[in-house]
Each structure stands twice: as structure tokens, then as C-alpha cells.
């Protein structure tokens, strides 16, 4: 196995390893494991050899190396990669010309010394929570190949959990980093809306789209997040803020007030999700409960905005090439394109109201805690599941706990816990269950520091993915 990103960079910097040897090992891991997991839709090994060679040459010249020197990574296939067609999970994009240049974040990773090894599978056009892609196949969960990886950044989460790469990039419109991070047992960061540039990423819902990293350790996640920050006028939503580095070892300030979200966030949390929240609350010393009363409205607003903007974006291609769209989501997209403007406007008003309520909550708490998904990863092909005696459709409901938060743009770190049953007779399934660590806008540092507390307490972290092809991956916890 390759190990954690920061460890790889340290070893390359010290001369203990070369970037070329790390790349060779990564390539072997991908070739051995991806047949079973189906994370990669394209590999970029020629480019990776050039990038790794450049790092090794810089070291041999005695130059100082950037923070992620020689670290292999991959990106969800909605990020532009120069010379590769940006699929965004869709067959209708497969005949588009190759991207002429890298997306802003891919360029930032290159500057940081990271080595790009490929593009990763996703739900078509990022509209889904399971990564069951009809065109490119389902990405399977490395901890149980019969289960979904989660979506839409399923390839990004499974590639880290399957120990093929230590770091990936994904996107999150309604939970698409946090849900797969939860299902696959990795850390994921959805930054504040506007923090990271989305330029040259295939859009889905402009007013809700976020991009961010996934990783196997909090240190890797934080270091990657730091490398990705920067102003970019090409993304109209990208905030004109200075880079605010978190550092690789974020520390939660003494006296940080952590609140446990009840109400909606408990109603939609199954036994394992509640158990994970209890474990995290105990480690963080959180005892006070609170409510985001507008959570249901915020989720509904996200649903309407997603339908309207997503439907409008794809309307022309849906008219001409409907049959080539993903069967699981194409009718929802068409229906979304019919949403009246008055509903969309009302959804934006509700969003403002929910945002104001959340800011009030941050007068009393610094970090809010909630489950990242209602339950463990469902089985591939599952059409429904039952949460607290309610049977609900799988694809539409897996984001029920993440949508209210991304609707109002708050930063969230998803941290993977491993609850052992629910203490009430439910058997342990040895699957991960994520929690969301939520902070006020622009306080990604607090989200990451809270996740680091859970990691240091030994309750959050990646575990060996025994189901991954070839087996034998080892924990980086």
C-alpha cells in the first residue's frame, strides 16, 4: 500500500522514496483492484509519469518540494483534465472534445506537486446518491462489494477506501461528497459555498454546487484543502477571500461548543446513524441538543432548486437525446425543467430564512453534529429502505440529512465512524457510518479540527477494505 498522502510527500522529500516508485505502486494497485470496484473511468498514467518525473528531477537538483510532492490522486470525472473528455458520468458527453486545459483545482493540485492518475466514476451529471451509473457501471463499496459506494462522488470515495489513492477530489451539490464518504468510510470536506473554485468543472446546480477533497486522514484532507484554496474570477461564486490555511494538524480550541442536532436530524437517523452521533458526541464532550427548525424547509428548497436548475441546464440535450440519458434520473430532470419560476423564487426565500436561523444557532454553538446518512450503504439495486418505521425510496432519500446543510452553504467535514450495532440487538455489520461536523461559514478549520479530535480518539478513520479486489489493504487509522 502507498500510505497517507503527507507520509508519501515526506518520504519523497527525504529521499526515502521517489515519486516514480510511488506512481508505479499506485498503478499496480489500481490495476489489481479497480476491476472489482469500478472507480476509474480513465487513467492518466502518461501524464502521471511526467508529473512524477518532474518531482524527482526537482529533488535531484536540490530544489525544495511543494507540500503534496509526488502524492497520487484522482478526480471525479466532472473536473476538466487537459486531453481527457469530461464525462460528468454521462454518455451524452462521451463524444465531446477533450478538455483543452485543467480545471482550476486540478491546476492547484499540480502546483502542489500532486500526481494525477485518473478520472473517477459518478452518478450521471451528479444527480444521484448511489453511483449506480447505467453507462459506466456501478462503483462498488470496498467494504462490501454488494453495496453501493454512495454518490454522486462514489468513485472518489471508493478509490480512497480501496486504498488506490490517498486523496481524491469530488463535488457536493446536496451531499455528494458526504454521503459516499459516509458509506465508504473516508473523510470528506464540503467547504463553504464559494470557498473553492468550480471553474472548468461540469456544472449541475450552479447555486448549490460545491467542490472539495476526500482523503483517508484528517491531515491529508486539510493539507489538500489548503492546496486547493485561491481566488479565481472565472467562477462567479468563488469568494474573493485570502487563503486561510488550516495546516495538517488542526487543533480544536479549548471551550469549543459542540451542539447535537436533533429534530429532523434525529427523525431521519436510523439506529446506526444515531449510534455514530452518540460516539462522536461523547468524544467531543457534546451534551447539549439543538434544532435547526427550518431543516425540512431547507431540504425541500434544495430539492426544488436542484430540479429547476438541473432541468434547465440539460433541457436542450434532453429534447434531442433523451434516450441516452441515465434512466434512473432523466424523468426527474425533465420534470424539474417544468418547475414554475414562483416555486424557485420561494425556495430561494426559504433558503435565506434557513441560513439566518443557522447563523443564530452559531451564536450558541461553534460546531454542530449530525449523522451524514440515514443508514449504512444500501445494497446495489435497492429501490427502498426503512428508517424509523418509514419505508422510503432509496435514491431520493439518502441525502435527507445532507441537503439542508448544503442548501445554506455551510462548511462540513464528514468523518467515518464504525458503530458496532445499535446496542439494542441490531447486529454489527462492520460497515462505516459517517457524521457531519458543521461550522459557521468560512470556519472549515473548526470542522477539520473536530474531525481530528475523533480521529485522535481512535473512533474515526479508514479501515482495511477487505472486500476490495486483491484484499490486503491496511488501515491508515
Amino acid at each position, binding site marked *: 500500500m502507498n500510505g497517507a498522502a503527507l507520509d508519501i510527500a515526506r518520504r519523497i522529500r527525504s529521499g526515502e522514496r521517489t515519486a516514480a516508485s510511488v506512481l508505479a505502486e499506485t498503478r499496480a494497485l489500481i490495476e489489481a483492484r479497480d476491476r472489482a470496484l469500478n472507480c476509474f473511468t480513465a487513467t492518466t498514467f502518461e501524464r502521471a509519469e511526467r508529473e512524477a518525473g518532474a518531482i524527482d528531477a526537482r529533488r535531484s537538483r536540490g530544489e525544495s518540494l511543494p507540500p503534496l510532492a509526488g502524492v497520487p490522486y484522482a478526480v471525479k470525472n466532472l473536473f476538466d483534465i487537459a486531453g481527457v473528455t469530461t464525462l460528468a458520468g454521462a454518455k451524452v458527453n462521451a463524444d465531446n472534445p477533450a478538455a483543452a486545459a485543467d480545471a482550476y483545482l486540478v491546476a492547484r493540485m499540480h502546483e502542489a506537486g500532486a500526481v494525477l492518475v485518473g478520472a473517477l466514476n459518478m452518478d450521471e451529471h451528479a444527480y444521484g446518491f448511489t453511483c449506480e451509473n447505467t453507462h459506466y457501471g456501478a462503483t462498488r463499496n470496498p467494504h462490501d462489494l454488494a453495496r453501493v459506494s454512495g454518490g454522486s462522488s462514489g468513485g472518489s470515495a471508493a478509490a480512497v477506501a480501496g486504498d488506490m489513492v490517498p486523496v481524491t477530489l469530488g463535488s457536493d451539490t446536496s451531499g455528494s461528497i458526504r454521503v459516499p464518504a459516509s458509506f465508504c468510510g473516508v473523510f470528506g470536506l464540503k467547504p463553504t459555498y464559494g470557498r473553492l473554485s468550480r471553474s472548468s468543472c461540469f456544472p449541475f446546480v450552479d447555486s448549490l454546487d460545491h467542490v472539495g477533497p476526500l482523503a483517508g486522514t484528517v491531515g491529508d484532507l486539510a493539507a489538500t484543502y489548503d492546496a486547493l484554496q485561491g481566488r479565481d474570477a472565472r467562477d462567479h461564486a468563488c469568494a474573493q477571500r485570502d487563503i486561510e490555511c488550516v495546516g495538517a494538524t488542526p487543533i480544536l480550541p479549548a471551550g469549543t461548543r459542540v451542539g447535537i442536532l436533533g429534530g429532523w436530524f434525529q427523525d431521519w437517523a436510523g439506529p446506526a446513524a444515531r449510534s455514530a452521533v452518540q460516539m462522536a458526541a461523547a468524544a467531543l464532550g457534546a451534551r447539549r441538543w439543538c434544532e435547526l427548525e427550518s431543516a425540512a*424547509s431547507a431540504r425541500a428548497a434544495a430539492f426544488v432548486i436542484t430540479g429547476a436548475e438541473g432541468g434547465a441546464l440539460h433541457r436542450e440535450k434532453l429534447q434531442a437525446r433523451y434516450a441516452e440519458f441515465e434512466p434512473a434520473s432523466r*424523468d426527474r430532470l*425533465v*420534470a424539474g425543467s*417544468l*418547475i414554475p419560476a414562483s*416555486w424557485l423564487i420561494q425556495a430561494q426565500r426559504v433558503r435565506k430564512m434557513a441560513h439566518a436561523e443557522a447563523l443564530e444557532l452559531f451564536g450558541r454553538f461553534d460546531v454542530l453534529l449530525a449523522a451524514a446518512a440515514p443508514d449504512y450503504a444500501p445494497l446495489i439495486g435497492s429501490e427502498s429502505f426503512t428508517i424509523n418505521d418509514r419505508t422510503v425510496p432509496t435514491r431520493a432519500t439518502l441525502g435527507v440529512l445532507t441537503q439542508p446543510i448544503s442548501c445554506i452553504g455551510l462548511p462540513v467535514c464528514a468523518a467515518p465512524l464504525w458503530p458496532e450495532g445499535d446496542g439494542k440487538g441490531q447486529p454489527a455489520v462492520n460497515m462505516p457510518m459517517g457524521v457531519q461536523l458543521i461550522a459557521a461559514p*468560512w470556519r472549515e478549520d473548526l470542522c477539520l479540527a473536530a474531525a481530528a479530535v475523533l480521529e485522535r480518539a481512535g473512533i474515526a478513520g479508514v479501515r482495511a477494505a477487505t472486500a476490495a479486489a486483491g484484499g490486503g489493504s491496511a488501515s491508515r487509522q
Partner: protein
Amino acid sequence: MSDPADSLRSYVRAALELQGYEFSEERIAEMTLQFTRIESIARTLLPPAADADAKLDLGPAPVFRP
């Protein structure tokens, strides 16, 4: 008063035509189902028509900024 289900069916059919879509009856029925689901969720955001003072119905729709 018209049946809400009929109103939704009529709306979807007319809106599809206006937007330039051409679908079979089977597909229109499926899209009507999908739209009905969106409507049931959107309805929770809309103040009752009789409630003219509903707070949410006042003011401009903001451009979202965190």
C-alpha cells in the same frame, strides 16, 4: 373546483409541449408522477393562498451568498 391531479396532468402536458419536448403517453405519465412528487415537496414551501401576510411571501428572492 377541478381535481388537483387533473390540473397537474394538464400542466405537465402543456409545459412539456411549450418546452419543445415530444414524448410518448407512457413517458408523459412517468413525468407527471415525477412532477407530482416535486409539487408535493414544493407545496410545503408555499404559503397558503389565503395567508396574504405570510412572511415568506414578502421581499425579493435573494441571490444566495454564504
